């Protein structure tokens, strides 16, 4: 009953009875009881899996027989020589480097375009947000249909315009581009809102003053809008990086990591090792290897949240 200690001491010095009745103890325990459901789910689905994951990564687990054998760091050593894992890391890096700047530029452009709150532009904001509420399955189905090599509307249009068609999902480079475009289309509405929130914080008088001083729109953008949006854009970069490094479901359905693993990202590689090739220990070792990076990004995110007073 450590928790009670300070209370009883304080009471004693004031000459009160040491609280022994259950109500006092209940009062002290109450907050913990209220936290129990959340902490319970957190323990079961975050903490235990994390520890279990460490254990698993040091074992060779035979799923069919339910046996496991300690193999030390063998899974980690194997990863270093696994070209598929290396490729998936490289792909994830490339994908992130393409997705994050695109999201920043496109969301900024749309938000500035829709800045004034006229009815038409409020309507357009809702429209731009719609892809973000669609499920990964719906997004992948739609884009797979649009980009279909023989029947898709994109190639249909190219054919009609007399330009050569592109095998969007079966050529390495084209598939990588398709995957990036789909992701940006899917997420950009959400980031547009963040930019709009940032824009609404900028004092209009700054623009008036600049206009009087003879600054053209381009100068006003570089000298006022962009510097004032710096914290917002920083947050967007962090969140979009998290989005990009976790990408999995849409791409799994859109290209299945193909052609020839050109769009295989890290999460898919993990999923594949664990659930398709049934080597869970090997799959988990990949997560653990990435954990420092993930924790770093999470830490960065918490700091930014604090600065922006979101927490």
């Amino acid at each position: 009953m450590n928790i009670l200690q300070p209370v009883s001491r304080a009471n004693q010095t004031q000459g009160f009875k040491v609280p022994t009745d259950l109500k006092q103890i209940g009062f002290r325990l109450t907050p913990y009881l209220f936290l129990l459901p959340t902490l319970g789910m957190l323990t079961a689905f975050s903490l235990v899996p994390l520890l279990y994951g460490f254990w698993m990564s040091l074992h060779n687990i035979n799923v069919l027989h339910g046996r496991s054998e300690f193999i030390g760091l063998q899974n980690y050593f194997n990863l270093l020589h696994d070209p598929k894992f290396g490729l998936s890391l490289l792909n994830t890096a490339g994908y992130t480097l393409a997705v994050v700047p695109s999201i920043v530029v496109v969301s900024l452009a749309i938000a500035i375009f829709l800045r004034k709150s006229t009815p038409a532009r409020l309507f357009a904001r809702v429209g731009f947000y719609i892809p973000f509420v669609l499920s990964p399955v719906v997004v992948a189905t739609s884009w797979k249909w649009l980009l279909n090599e023989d029947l898709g509307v994109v190639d249909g249009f190219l054919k009609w315009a007399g330009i050569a068609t592109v095998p969007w999902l079966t050529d390495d480079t084209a598939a990588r581009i398709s995957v990036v475009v789909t992701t940006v289309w899917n997420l950009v509405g959400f980031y547009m809102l963040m930019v709009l929130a940032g824009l609404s914080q900028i004092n209009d008088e700054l623009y008036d003053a600049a206009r009087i001083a003879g600054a053209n729109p381009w100068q006003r953008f570089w000298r006022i809008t962009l510097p004032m949006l710096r914290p917002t854009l920083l947050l967007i970069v962090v969140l979009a990086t998290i989005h990009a490094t976790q990408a999995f479901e849409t791409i799994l359905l859109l290209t299945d990591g193909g052609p020839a693993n050109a769009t295989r990202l890290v999460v898919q590689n993990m999923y594949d090792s664990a659930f398709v090739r049934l080597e869970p220990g090997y799959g988990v070792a990949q997560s653990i290897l990435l954990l420092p990076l993930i924790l770093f990004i999470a830490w960065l995110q918490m700091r930014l949240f604090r600065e922006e007073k979101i927490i």
Partner: protein
Amino acid sequence: MHDVAAVVVCLIFLGPVLWVAYSAFRPSRDLFTFPPNLSLNGFSLQNFQAVFASGDVARYAFNSLLVAAISSLITIIASSMAGFALAKFKFPGRNLIFMVILAALLIPLQVLMVPVFLVLKTLGWVNQLIGIIVPPAATPTGTFMMRQFIRGIPDELIEAARLDGASDWKIYRHIILPLCAPMSAALGIISFTWRWNDYLWPLIVVNNQDKFTLQLSLANLVGTNTVEWGTLLAYAILVLIPVLIVFLLFQRLFLKGQVGAAVKG
């Protein structure tokens, strides 16, 4: 002029969805014509009939509904309880617990999917709907939103009730929860759409057809090459319509920008 451009650009941006919706109502034989045939006599519901012939769609819809509803309910209850504790009680370790909750919840489920799956297996929740319902129910967004909101409830209300001899549970049940109703509704609506849209958990947890959700069954059909595109598109439209309606009805909630939503639903 600017306004017209905004709407036009927006419609072009939504082109993929509009094109899917248009194609879903075309008979399969003229699905692939370009430029598109816009006449009304090409309009057909045959794709939607094919969807219902493709499997037990009513069952999948029921599963999706059940999963999304119960999971959201758990989110509301757990988040409001945690939010109450974090906002209105002083206790040792409060800040630490808050930080741990946030940090742990920021670790994406994707990264932990393999060990979480094995935890579910130990619990006997594999191939059960409960295995899809519970793991995603604890969300950082929920804890944030509730803590923030409950902070705004005046302490005097709670003190007064306490002087009247109300237990903390009664205070939660009869004061906090009713006052949180608008926030609970908001959280419930948003989390309903997340859970309705979930694909990763059903994919990992469920194998049996009778436990499929709509998302999983559509994804399964996309994977097989024997299914007509018209059917897939009609199915996609059916799956997205509930979410679209909820979104359009409550767009203000969504457009407030739930930052946590970006990270983990």
